[in-house]
């Protein structure tokens, strides 16, 4: 039906999207066929993935641009509930996120997976990579709860297998377990949320209620709507990694192969954002203000805690994973603001908040993807993620270093790259909070803005550390010596993302023009009219007098001044700078070990925010020969742990084990006791059961 020839002649966005998903799924068939030719498998499968991603991105972009809203129904699924698919602008936008990231990551994988294939079979990696993409594609295309959940769990399971891909490490298994378990719990609450909505849609007498269309039409009692919202928020929050539901994220994302980490951090957790938007703005539609405030508060907490925990990390990918928590927080801040404004019937402002959130979604996908790919390149070259063992890579891996730097600047929300634009929009949304008709919110929301400021400043600190310790300075161990630059496909993948980061940073008005249809769909207003009222060069979200920004001019301006200065200094009597040894403070034997480390870099922040972490620091002198004050060696160990683990997860797990121990007592081994159970059961049934 969907492969009808006339559609090939004049395709529609949803045709492209389903074709993309089909390509991804079809690619999995290559795995058994080419199981013994890994090189061919990698080439063909990832080329197919690239093609599919491109189609998905095009289809999604088209759907947004055309404000299309097409639905189709596939004749599979459970009885009375076939698979409904729909491509509306919101789905289209997220399809672009998937497609864009899938595109660059697949290109990158062409080289990256080859490297892995030298060590171990990669059939599983290829298979689940494709399934993962297909799962995410179907999540956004799904237009009924059943398909949504199937796709959602398909995405989860395939990413789980990718997390445990290198399953020999126990850490990977632990991470995989935690991830899959929490994701499953999340899926269950999402299911419940849909159940509540479906119950109001059709009373659960038929499956029609599970179609999103029926939920849209349903008139849900406020109390139950809140229940559905909270359930959905919990479920999606688990996936998104909202603090305190984030603990799986920094475990699972780092241990996956880096191309997968990029997709997980860049795209998969955005599916949760999609879910939140879909459920609140679309399905439930009537939003009380405190939902927005709750999302905003959760976003703030996530952003702050995420970045603070990130600062404490010295595993490069783990650090990046915590930053995903932070950025999800920032996205949620935008969306929460949008929800709050929407609740108070301020459509333009709601549109601004929503756009800020969506813009950051796209941005984060791009730069976090870039960073994970960069980290993957580092790992590929050095075989370690441990920052304390790295250093000085910029000399040997100039391309990777430069591209990674772009990612660092972007994620630190520094102009002229993209991260700044979305955070700036978020600030603008914050600054409009005085329009809210609630004094309490008026006072509290600005403090949230300060929290965001703290977050982005800390993020900058963190990425100075991440880039500085990894790429700058001198090699801290043999891992970082004798490395070489990664291959061309990996560089192309990263370069594409870096370029996208720059373009989104300097052309925000164009993007917002394109994006504007989404808030129009949900809150009935957009900001494009004002945002690009002064042309593509200027971003003026509300009004030019209110605030304006031009990334292009910042970029070109700084570039021009730098160029002028350079010419001024080098034009006349240019002398190449002399190379000399760094100043050694009079101490003659400088070694790389004297450099600042990741741990020492974040020490002041650890001190300032110490109360938020569970710090176990121990330093003890060893080999004291002459005098206690002059030990030969000092052993130092530092463990910074997530407090939430002890606050929430450990008690839950302890309780589960406690109950488990109780249940095992039932099976005590003595048959007489078992007979007593039967006996008592009969008695109880006889007395109460008749």
């Amino acid at each position: 039906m969907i492969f009808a020839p006339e559609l090939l002649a004049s395709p529609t966005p949803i045709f492209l999207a389903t074709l993309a998903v089909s390509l991804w799924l079809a690619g999995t068939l290559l795995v058994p066929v080419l199981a013994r030719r890994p090189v061919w498998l990698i080439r063909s499968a990832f080329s197919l993935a690239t093609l599919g991603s491109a189609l998905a991105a095009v289809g999604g972009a088209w759907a947004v641009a055309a404000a299309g809203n097409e639905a189709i129904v596939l004749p599979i699924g459970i009885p009375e509930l076939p698979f409904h698919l729909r491509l509306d602008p919101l789905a289209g936008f997220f399809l672009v996120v998937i497609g864009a990231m899938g595109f660059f990551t697949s290109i990158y994988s062409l080289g990256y997976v080859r490297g892995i294939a030298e060590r171990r079979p990669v059939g599983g990696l290829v298979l689940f990579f494709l399934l993962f993409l297909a799962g995410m594609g179907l999540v956004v295309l799904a237009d009924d709860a059943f398909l949504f959940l199937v796709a959602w769990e398909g995405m989860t399971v395939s990413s789980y297998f990718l997390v445990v891909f290198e399953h020999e490490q126990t850490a990977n298994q632990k991470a995989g377990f935690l991830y899959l378990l929490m994701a499953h719990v999340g899926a269950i609450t999402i299911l419940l949320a849909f159940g509540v909505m479906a119950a109001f849609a059709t009373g659960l007498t038929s499956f029609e209620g599970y179609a999103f269309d029926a939920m849209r039409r349903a008139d849900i009692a406020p109390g139950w709507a809140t229940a559905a919202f909270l359930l959905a928020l919990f479920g999606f929050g688990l996936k998104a990694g909202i603090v305190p539901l984030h603990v799986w994220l920094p475990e699972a994302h780092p241990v996956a192969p880096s191309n997968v980490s990029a997709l997980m951090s860049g795209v998969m957790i955005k599916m949760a954002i999609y879910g939140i938007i879909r459920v609140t703005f679309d399905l439930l539609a009537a939003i009380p203000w405190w939902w927005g405030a709750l999302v905003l508060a959760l976003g703030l907490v996530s952003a702050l805690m995420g970045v603070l925990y990130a600062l404490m990390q010295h595993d490069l990918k783990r650090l990046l994973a915590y930053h995903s928590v932070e950025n999800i927080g920032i996205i949620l801040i935008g969306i929460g603001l949008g929800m709050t404004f929407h609740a108070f019937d301020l459509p333009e402002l709601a549109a601004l908040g929503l756009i800020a959130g969506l813009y950051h979604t796209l941005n984060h996908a791009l730069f976090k993807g870039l960073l994970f790919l960069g980290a993957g390149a580092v790992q590929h070259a050095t075989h370690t993620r441990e920052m304390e063992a790295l250093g000085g890579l910029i000399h040997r891996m100039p391309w990777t270093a430069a591209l990674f730097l772009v990612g660092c600047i972007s994620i630190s929300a520094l102009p002229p790259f993209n991260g700044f634009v979305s955070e700036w929009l978020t600030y603008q949304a914050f600054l409009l909070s005085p329009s809210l008709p609630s004094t309490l919110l008026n006072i509290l929301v600005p403090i949230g803005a300060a929290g965001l400021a703290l977050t982005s400043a800390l993020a900058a600190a963190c990425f100075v550390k991440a880039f500085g310790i990894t790429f700058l300075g001198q090699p801290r161990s043999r891992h970082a010596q004798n490395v070489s630059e990664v291959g061309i496909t990996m560089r192309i993948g990263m370069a594409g993302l870096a370029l996208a980061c720059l373009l989104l940073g300097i052309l925000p008005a164009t993007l917002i023009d394109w994006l504007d249809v989404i808030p129009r769909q949900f809150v009935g207003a957009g900001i494009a009219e004002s945002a690009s009222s002064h042309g593509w060069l200027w971003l003026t979200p509300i009004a030019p007098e209110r605030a304006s920004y031009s990334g292009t001019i910042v970029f070109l301006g700084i570039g021009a001044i730098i160029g002028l200065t350079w010419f001024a200094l080098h034009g006349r009597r240019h002398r190449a700078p002399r190379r000399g040894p760094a100043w050694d403070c009079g101490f003659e034997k400088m070694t790389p070990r004297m450099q600042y480390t990741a741990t020492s870099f974040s020490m002041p922040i650890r001190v300032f925010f110490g109360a938020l972490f569970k710090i176990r620091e121990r330093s003890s002198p060893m080999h004291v020969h002459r005098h206690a004050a002059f030990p030969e060696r000092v052993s130092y160990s530092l463990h910074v742990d997530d407090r939430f683990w002890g606050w929430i997860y450990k008690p839950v797990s302890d309780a589960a084990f406690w109950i488990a121990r109780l249940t095992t007592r039932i099976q005590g081994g003595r048959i007489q006791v078992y007979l007593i159970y039967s006996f008592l059961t009969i008695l109880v049934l006889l007395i109460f059961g008749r």
Partner: protein
Amino acid sequence: MSPVFLAQVVDLLSALVLLLGFGLLAQRRIYALLHLFAWQGLFLAANTAIVAYGAGVRHLYFSALLTLVMKVALIPYILHVLIQRMKIERDVETMVNVPLTLLIGIALVVLSYNVMSPIQEFSTLMTRSTLAIALATVMLGLLMMITRRHAVAQVIGFLAMENGLFFAATSATYGMPMVVELGVALDILIAALIFGVFFFQIRTTFESLDLSKMARLKEDVGE
């Protein structure tokens, strides 16, 4: 014989069956147990025969005969031979607190009566009042299985329970349809044979039929 008299005999025999149930509960020695069980079967068979006569149900005679052959002769004989062959210790076991067990037994009888009395209302048979006794016999058999630690004693408890079931069939409906009765009897016979196989297996693997040694399979909380 007048129906009233027959009913009284039936009641008396059923009381004896119940009494033997208590006897089984309290007896320690294995041969004595076997004998008590055989007696229970005998009274049951007699009871059945009298009901067959009183109610004029022909196939109940067959049932009575079946009981006689199986419960009084065959199964006790098989068990007897087994016990002798395997040189099973005579004094079966030390039971915990016989008086308490008996008290629980009495409570079970009360409960059985309580459970069955509304049902008896629907019955017009001469055996209607013995329904509660049948249930009580089942329950006592179960209780016996709980309190015993010896495999043979447990099997006897099981068979006593079957007696109760058979009794129930007689008292509620003058016996089940023939095909069912036969099938049940066959099953019980096979069960008895398998029990015999098990005695050997337990004997060889545990060197005793004391069930307290059979508590290896349990959840060890190692973590």
